C-alpha cells in the first residue's frame, strides 16, 4: 500500500504526519518512507536514519560532436524546452534547461549528439529503527526536482507499507511524487490560505484519480471552513491534531510526535485502518 502525504500549502504538517505514521506502523508491517521533498528533505531530522548508501542522481544532457554536426537544426526543432540552439556557425546547449528527454540525440540525422550524464543531486538510503528510509537531495541552484523524485521512487519496496513525504504545492514535483500511490492524505490547517491551497490540491489529486482524505492539523479555531468544504465535497476528515504548544515545541526539537507523545500512536494506527478501508472499498467498486 502506497500512501502519499501532500498538502497544497506548505508548512501544514506533512512531515509530522508522515514520520508519525511510519513510526506508528513499523511494528505491525514492513514500512518504508520515501522523502520526495528533494528541495528541502526534512524527514531524516525526525527519523534519524543510519545511511548506508549514497548514489549520484544524474540526467542526460546533449553533447554535440562538431566534426559530425552539419548545423541542420533538427535538434533545436525537436527540443520542447529550447535547450539547444543552432546558430549559423555553432550549436549552443543550455544544459540547465534540458529535461533529459533524449529527443535531440535520437533524431539527429548525423548521430552527432552524445548523451552525457549531468549530476543534479543525490539519493541516499538507510535504516531507521526498522523503517526503510530513502530521500533525495537536489543540488542547490538546480531548478528541476522531478528527475530526482523519480530516482527516489525507483527504490519503492514491493509489498509492505510505503509512505511518501511529498513536496508542498500542486505542480510538477508534487504530481511526480503523488502519482502511482493508492491513497493521498492531504494535510491542511484551518486558515483561509490553508483552505485555498487544499482546494487546489484536491483538484490535483482528483485529476490523478487517486483516493484522498484530509488531516486537519493545528485545529481548534476556524475549523468550520475546512469541515464545511470537506463535507460538501464528500472528502473524509480522517484525523484532527489540535494547535498545541507542546507538539510545536517537540517538533522544533526534532522529536517525532508519536515519540514525544506515545498516546498518538493509537490515532495514527486508526488513521491507517481508515485509509485501508477506503482503498479496499475503492478496489471493490472502481467506478466511484
Amino acid at each position: 500500500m502506497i500512501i502519499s502525504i501532500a498538502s497544497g500549502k506548505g508548512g501544514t504538517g506533512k512531515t509530522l504526519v508522515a514520520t508519525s505514521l511510519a513510526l506508528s506502523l513499523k511494528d505491525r508491517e514492513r514500512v518504508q518512507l520515501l522523502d520526495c521533498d528533494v528541495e528541502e528533505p526534512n524527514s531524516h531530522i525526525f527519523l534519524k536514519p543510519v545511511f548506508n548508501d549514497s548514489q549520484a542522481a544524474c540526467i542526460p544532457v546533449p553533447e554535440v560532436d562538431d566534426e559530425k554536426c552539419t548545423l541542420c537544426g533538427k535538434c533545436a526543432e525537436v527540443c520542447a524546452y529550447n535547450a539547444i540552439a543552432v546558430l549559423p556557425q555553432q550549436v549552443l546547449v543550455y544544459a540547465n534547461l534540458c529535461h533529459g528527454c533524449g529527443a535531440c540525440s535520437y533524431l539527429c540525422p548525423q548521430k552527432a549528439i552524445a548523451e552525457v550524464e549531468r549530476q543534479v543531486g543525490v539519493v541516499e538510503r538507510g535504516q531507521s529503527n526498522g523503517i526503510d528510509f530513502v530521500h533525495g537531495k537536489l543540488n542547490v541552484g538546480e531548478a528541476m526536482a522531478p528527475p530526482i523524485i523519480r530516482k527516489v521512487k525507483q527504490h519503492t519496496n514491493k509489498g509492505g507499507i510505503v509512505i511518501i513525504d511529498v513536496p508542498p504545492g500542486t505542480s510538477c514535483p508534487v504530481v511526480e511524487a503523488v502519482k502511482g500511490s493508492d491513497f493521498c492524505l492531504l494535510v491542511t490547517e484551518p486558515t483561509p490560505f490553508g483552505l485555498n491551497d487544499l482546494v487546489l490540491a484536491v483538484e490535483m489529486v482528483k485529476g490523478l484519480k487517486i483516493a484522498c482524505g484530509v488531516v486537519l492539523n493545528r485545529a481548534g479555531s476556524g475549523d468550520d471552513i475546512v469541515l464545511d468544504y470537506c463535507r460538501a465535497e464528500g472528502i473524509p476528515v480522517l484525523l484532527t491534531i489540535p494547535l498545541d504548544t507542546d507538539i510545536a515545541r517537540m517538533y522544533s526539537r526534532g522529536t517525532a510526535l508519536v515519540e514525544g507523545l506515545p498516546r498518538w500512536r493509537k490515532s495514527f494506527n486508526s488513521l491507517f485502518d481508515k485509509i485501508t478501508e477506503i482503498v479496499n472499498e475503492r478496489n471493490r467498486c472502481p467506478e466511484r
Partner: protein
Amino acid sequence: MKIAVTAGSPELEAEVDRRFGRCRHFIIIDPETMQFEALESTGPSAASGAGISTAQMIIGKGVGAVLTGNCGPNAYQALSAAGIKVITGVSGKIAAAVKDYQAGEFKAADQPNVDAHSGMNTKTD
C-alpha cells in the same frame, strides 16, 4: 545592414518594448531606407527558453544588431555567439530609436542587463 527592434505592436509608430525573449512583436528594418517588416514571435507562449527561441528567430533574419529595453543571459549568449550586437536600454518610439542607431548614438552592451525570466514579470502598457 538590417536591425531588429522589439515592438509593443507591429507598427513603425509603436514604442520599443522593454522585453526581448517574451516580446510578441519585432520590427526588422533597414535603417538606411526605413523599409521594414513586422515579425510575430512565439516567445510569449514558450514554456521555457523564450530568450533562446526568440534569439534563433532573430538570428535567422540576418540582422546585425538588436535594439531592446532589456536582454537576459540566455538570449544574450545566443545573439553574441552569432555575432549580433545587442543594444539595451532603448526606449521611446521605434522610428526615433532607429534614427539614433543610424547616427551612431548607441553603444553595444557587453553583457545581459537583466536576469533570466525578467520579461515574464514585466508589466507593459
